[in-house]
């Protein structure tokens, strides 16, 4: 390796060696019939190992698009992105992440167990191993006992838990979640938030979580990324230091309210740009 290459490599190295996601000057423009749409513009972000990062912002701010770029479901039109030190495409090909969509997206003709083990089937893992890991994943989301049920036999919240189990089944270190609880009622959402936090504390995974709920973002995250639309960009990154095993009751503490206030201020500042 020549000296120049080494220097280049050093220059390209992310600021923290433990960065799972490293995004620099990322932009994405959709070409539409009505002219270009600037979905993302000049986004810089580092997600470190073990982080729980929430993306919050009004609709159209590009938070889902950003998550999809990380997942290589969209291609950036400018800037750099690396996941575990490789490109987003390579990371996807290495099955580096589990993705949870807004809807459960369970296949209706498969039982819950066979839905959860679908990724393992595609990775051509043996049947015994699939069943073992499927059981484990279902236990993590407290759905054991529902293996042989079909999706329609489960409530919306249980279906979404099954889809989380599916994302966990192949044990990727990175979990990408796109408003997974958006369609659920407040009580179910609280419960699932609690379960998700426990899971995060137990497995030490890195989570990127898109939401439009301020309490949800503040309650779950170790880092909150506040975004703003037209063009989609990051306007604030807030670090929180709540303990990993926090309970729902922290939502009444002054520290919590203070962070929530800062998020709200950020969102408001982003909006005034628009009007």
């Amino acid at each position, binding site marked *: 390796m020549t000296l120049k290459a080494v220097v280049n490599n050093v220059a390209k190295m992310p600021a923290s060696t433990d960065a799972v996601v490293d995004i620099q000057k990322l932009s994405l423009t959709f070409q539409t019939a009505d002219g270009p749409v600037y979905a993302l513009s000049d986004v810089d972000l580092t997600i470190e190992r073990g982080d729980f990062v929430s993306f919050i912002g009004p609709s159209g701010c590009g938070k889902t698009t950003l998550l999809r770029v990380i*997942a290589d*479901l969209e291609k950036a039109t400018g800037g750099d992105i690396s996941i575990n030190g490789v490109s987003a495409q390579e990371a*996807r*090909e290495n*099955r580096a*992440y*589990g*993705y949870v*969509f*807004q*809807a459960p*997206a369970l*296949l*209706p*003709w*498969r*039982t819950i167990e066979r839905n959860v083990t*679908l*990724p393992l*089937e*595609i*990775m051509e893992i043996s049947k015994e191993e699939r069943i073992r890991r499927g059981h484990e994943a279902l236990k993590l989301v407290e759905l054991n006992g529902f293996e042989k049920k*079909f*999706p*329609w036999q489960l409530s919306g919240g249980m279906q979404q838990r099954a889809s989380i189990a599916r994302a966990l089944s192949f044990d990727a270190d990175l979990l990408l979640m796109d408003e997974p609880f958006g369609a659920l009622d407040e009580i179910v959402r609280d419960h699932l938030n609690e379960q998700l936090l426990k899971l995060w504390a137990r497995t030490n995974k890195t989570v990127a979580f898109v939401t439009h709920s301020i309490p949800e973002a503040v309650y779950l995250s170790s880092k909150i990324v506040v975004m703003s639309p037209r063009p989609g960009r990051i306007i604030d990154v807030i670090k929180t230091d709540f303990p990993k095993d926090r309970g729902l009751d922290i939502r009444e503490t002054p520290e919590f309210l203070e962070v929530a206030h800062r998020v709200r201020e950020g969102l408001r500042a982003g909006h005034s740009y628009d009007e």
Partner: protein
Amino acid sequence: MTSNTATMNGAIAGPSLWSRMMSGQAGPVTVVLMALFVIWYGGAVLMNAPTQIDKYNRADQTWTKMQLIEDTLAQERPILPAPHQVAQEMYKTIFATKITSKRSLVYHTWVTLSSTLLGFVFGTALGILLAIGIVHVVTLEKSLMPWVISSQTIPILAIAPMVVVVLGAIGLKGLVPKAIISTYLCFFPVTISMVKGLRSPQVIQLDLMRTYNASKWQTFWSLRLPSAMPYLFASLKVAIAISLVGAIVGELPTGAQAGLGARLLAGSYYGQTIQIWSALLTAAFVAAIMVVLVGWCERRVLVRMGARS
């Protein structure tokens, strides 16, 4: 007070009995069937009356209306045979004749049915293969789809003799040419439905497969094919029925010696209307039974695939 309740009960019991009769499938079907019989008998009397009156006149016979009705329903070669005449003929040729006999309708039905089923299998396989190609390869969609559609604009009666003659020249006779005519008719609905079915997975489901870095074939087996099953069965019901039409049409232009089509043709040569109608009705029954069987398979498969029963 008591009389009041009684009338109320009576008023309620009246419509509820009718609606109970009509709520299932049996009630409405029976009503339609009876209406059909009335129209059929009426038509038979009206259409056969002129020849019957002619016959009376030539024989210088006096006749009453009752006698006319009776005679029009018992002619040997009526213009429109009465239902019971057809039923008698069908009983005679299906149950009372040895099935190895050339006069047995069971024998003729089997000849047609075997090429129907072979054509159906060919057609379904061809239809599915074409759909898989069209969904996966853009060039195939552009090059094949117009041909698939225009193939069905050519009258099958024009193609059938050519198929039989060409295949006959290369030594293929009997079953296969007829089956190929069935294939030609029944691949079409399968292709069209399967293209739609294989494209029916939602974007979110395709994205999901992409996050697993699933190959095209894995996506096909785990997502596209299962999604297409309801579309497949809907098209199979159409395909099996027109496959039978294809097999019958394939027997017509070639002067086939056996099969329901041959019975129709022979019947029309010799003015054997009763024979024509019994062959027609048998074909209709066979088609109905096959559609019901496909529907039964559909329910079995979809229940196994977790459909709400």
